[in-house]
């Protein structure tokens, strides 16, 4: 009986899936034409049309696989810069490119983690489902997600969350949730991680796991991480400081070269 039921369920599911062809959320993009992950020229951002610029005339480049810390006091514009790169702030002046194309929504190669993710506190969701959502980046409208179990299991293992797969996301600690969101970015296959103060809610153990995930030599992410703790910046290849609307490079990619030598 269960075999018949599952067969029938599969038939119905296939009929639905064949009803409409999958439509991607966004057009596929070309591979990067150089070894730069991010290029920013003369960037000026106003959060509202007539408000003063958060920062103006900012220039920087970030090579592929470079781990970059973005430091600066509260309100200096670190989050605004990350949101602009993620495509969440479409109105900016200047030239910004990630993997050779302008920031826009619907790019599976880029993941952004907000400082305080606005998750619906009423929505019942287990950790495994949260991490599975990363696969949606590769499945367009009307398309069912299949065969993601291995990817999800490996991301959960990487962030040491295997024992919590069935736990409701609302019963996770701040650190566990942050690791779950990073696992989702890993399943998404993101190559650039834009992280807004990810260490803020982490205890020592969670921090160690996240650092291992972000800085391990086998992981080839390009990381841009906002932080206002100067001590955090020591392990980065490059440190950029935003202060009073200007950006300066404090140290360049020496560590980066060593890591990939």
């Amino acid at each position, binding site marked *: 009986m269960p075999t018949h039921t599952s067969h029938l369920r599969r038939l119905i599911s296939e009929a639905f899936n064949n009803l409409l062809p999958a439509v991607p959320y966004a057009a596929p993009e070309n591979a990067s034409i150089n070894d730069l992950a991010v290029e920013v020229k003369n960037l000026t951002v106003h959060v509202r049309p007539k408000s003063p610029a958060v920062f103006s005339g900012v220039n920087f480049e970030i090579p592929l696989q470079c781990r970059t810390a973005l430091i600066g006091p509260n309100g200096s514009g670190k989050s605004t810069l990350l949101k602009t790169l993620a495509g969440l702030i479409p109105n900016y002046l200047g030239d910004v490119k990630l993997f050779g194309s302008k920031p826009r929504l619907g790019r599976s190669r880029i993941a952004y983690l907000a400082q305080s993710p606005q*998750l619906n506190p009423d929505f019942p969701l287990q950790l495994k489902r949260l991490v599975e959502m990363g696969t949606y980046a590769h499945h367009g409208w009307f398309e*069912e*997600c299949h065969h993601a179990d291995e990817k999800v299991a490996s991301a959960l293992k990487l962030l040491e969350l295997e024992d919590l797969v069935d736990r409701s996301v609302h019963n996770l600690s701040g650190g566990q949730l942050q690791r779950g969101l990073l696992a989702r970015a890993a399943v998404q296959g993101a190559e650039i991680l834009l992280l807004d103060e990810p260490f803020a809610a982490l205890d020592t153990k969670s921090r160690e796991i996240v650092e291992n995930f972000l800085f391990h030599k086998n992981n080839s992410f390009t990381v841009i991480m906002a932080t206002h703790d100067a001590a955090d910046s020591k392990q980065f290849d490059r440190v950029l400081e935003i202060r009073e609307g200007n950006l300066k490079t404090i140290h360049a990619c020496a560590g980066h070269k060593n890591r990939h030598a």
Partner: protein
Amino acid sequence: MLGIKIVMLNNLLSAFQEDFFLRALLALFLSGISAACLGSYIILRRMSFISTAMTHSILPGVVLAVLLGVSAYWGALIAALLTAAGIAWISSRKGSSEDSAIGVMLSVMFALGIAFMGLSHSWRDFTGLLFGSIVSVSSEDIAIILGTTFIVLLCLRLVHKELELASFDEEYAQLLGARPALLRSVLLILIALAAVACVRLVGALLTTALFIIPSTTGVLLGKNLKQVMFWSVICACGGGALGLFISYTFQGIPAGAAIVLGCAIPYFIIRIKNA
């Protein structure tokens, strides 16, 4: 005790021999399924006020349709869709929350209905609109409800992963390009369709209950969206059928009210059990 059981069983058997009862049961099951599935999203997205707005804002459409001599269903549907479009438009503007958009559209549409009634000097009896009449559903009504349920389930199935994502983490949905604002509009249109179909059964005043009460029970029982929907449908259909049977047995109780009370029984049982 045994005597009461035998009487109830006899009543149940005779109810199933009545054509109108079977038609009402079918209409209830069909609309219960669509209301419960949509209700799950309504509850989880904290949009309970929306179903009240949809059912009350159909008044100008119904009044105009009756005055023009066309089907009240189409008048109600157009008014509900206009309300959905108005809510989506207002809430997408800066400085307007969805909550205030619903409040504005509900009041404007209801006032428009009263104005139409006054202008035409025809204060007809619209109690049917307020309280519904499930026992007099026609085959045409059942066809409309069946079509509505099919459209609602098909749309929810086709965009379920996007709706789930946008309902849980709107910013991530936006980052992936899944267009949460478009999904909100689709959801509003589906709610408008289902609300108009339900009004014929339990009336404008009680349709909100069909969306809200079974889904609130489902949220207490389900650990994920699928389970919430499953339990919502069970509570809507089971509780609704119980209410319909009570109304059949005790003839003085209106069917709409009995259905809503039937749907509320599982909610209170679980609430008291979990207290």
